């Protein structure tokens, strides 16, 4: 049986080639992770991740078209709509519990998770924009078991640690990619550099993390 498989956290030898040992990461983004023991059986591995821009930024979001959209999906879409996809700070993610089919309480939990993270991000990097606007500008995502409420008190207790953990090294990115995993056997992280025709002499960076192993047949819009 696997949870955060293999249970000792070791990456299977045939998958190690897919895990980068270094990377080039975009300027102004910081990432972190923390352990909130969202799933009781996970006593070892980080299960909270935060990816944030040090300044408010443009954002875009695609989500599942499943009619039973999980609470964090509804909440993130609402945040994006309210702020017209601009001045977004980042996204807080938990693994271990999907916060799906959890009704009004689930939406309140997702909102609490996003709000506390956003408030702490604002304290860390205050901006003029944020001083005038108290609304939440941090997205929220969850993955894991469906039909169970989030242990929101445990999560909230660890969000300060999560924000304190932010950094921009390869290790920060890799740990964060690991924290969003469920039955994945390895963290999925890529980074790349590129140039654009109208910006001579400037090298841009792109980095991304993803997770998924089962319940995979996406049809996002």
């Amino acid at each position, binding site marked *: 049986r696997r949870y955060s498989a293999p249970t000792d956290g070791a990456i299977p030898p045939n998958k190690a080639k897919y895990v980068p040992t270094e990377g080039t990461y*975009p*300027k102004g983004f910081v990432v972190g992770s923390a352990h909130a023991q969202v799933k009781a059986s996970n006593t070892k591995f980080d299960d909270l991740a935060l990816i944030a821009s040090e300044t408010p930024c443009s954002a875009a979001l695609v989500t599942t078209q499943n009619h*039973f959209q999980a609470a*964090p999906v509804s909440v*993130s879409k609402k945040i994006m709509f309210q702020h017209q996809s*601009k001045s977004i700070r980042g996204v807080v993610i938990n693994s271990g519990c999907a916060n799906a089919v959890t009704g009004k309480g689930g939406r309140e939990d997702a909102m609490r998770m996003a709000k506390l993270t956003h408030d702490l991000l604002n304290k860390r990097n205050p901006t003029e924009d944020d001083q005038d606007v108290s609304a939440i500008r941090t997205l929220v995502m969850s993955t894991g078991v469906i039909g169970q409420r989030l242990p929101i008190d445990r999560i909230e207790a660890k969000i300060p640690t999560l924000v304190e953990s932010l950094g921009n090294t390869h290790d920060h990115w890799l740990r964060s990619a690991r924290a969003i995993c469920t039955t994945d056997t390895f963290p999925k992280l*890529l980074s790349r550099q590129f140039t654009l025709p109208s910006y001579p002499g*400037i090298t841009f960076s792109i980095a*991304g993390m993803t997770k998924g192993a089962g319940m*995979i047949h996406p049809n996002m819009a």
Partner: protein
Amino acid sequence: TLLGVICTDAPIQKTALRTLLSTATNSSFNRITVDGDTSTNDSVALFANGMAAPGSDVLEKQSEDYKEMNKVLTSFMEDLAKLIVRDGEGATKFVTVRVTKADNHTAAHVVANSIATSALVKTALYGKDANWGRILCAIGYAPGNTCIRPNQTSVSFIPADGSEELKLLVNGEPQAVDEARAATILEMEDLEILVKLSNKEKDVGEATVYTCDFSHEYVTINGDYRT
């Protein structure tokens, strides 16, 4: 569930960002399948803070920069999406299903999906069985108006080592399959299944879907996931 977060320090206008993400998603994350189940939580976010070129004009739709960014993002997201398939629960194989010469792209995608989600095709791949009959069966029941012409349909395995394709069916006629070679090809971790739906000169409809095999381990993992 699929989650994804992508960050760039390029300066991209928000409407352009939305279109870029939507376009790239349709040819990456929306082209993979592990078990055919669409999650309640699938989400991918793209952030652009412009920090690599502060004070510059932002990238807008229809510019040359937009076209280049579209290429970069699509290729990047395709590579991320493939990692998920490689880590499919219990998977031992990474399989590319490419359907060509369909009447249109939608029909090609539907047929590719039908093959890529067939439990019997996926268990045959796990068992290293060149069971092309199951592939044809999945093509035949693909939903919607796919305009399948059995006597023009061809199926091949394309080996990952670059060696010659193994023809299984040509214009609806089964080929004498070298079982030893088929077994060698199916031993490899990567495999491509190529389906030609017609003899048209021009390739009107084409689609690629990435999938994996289906093993005992998948059942073991999911039989008690909740508890």
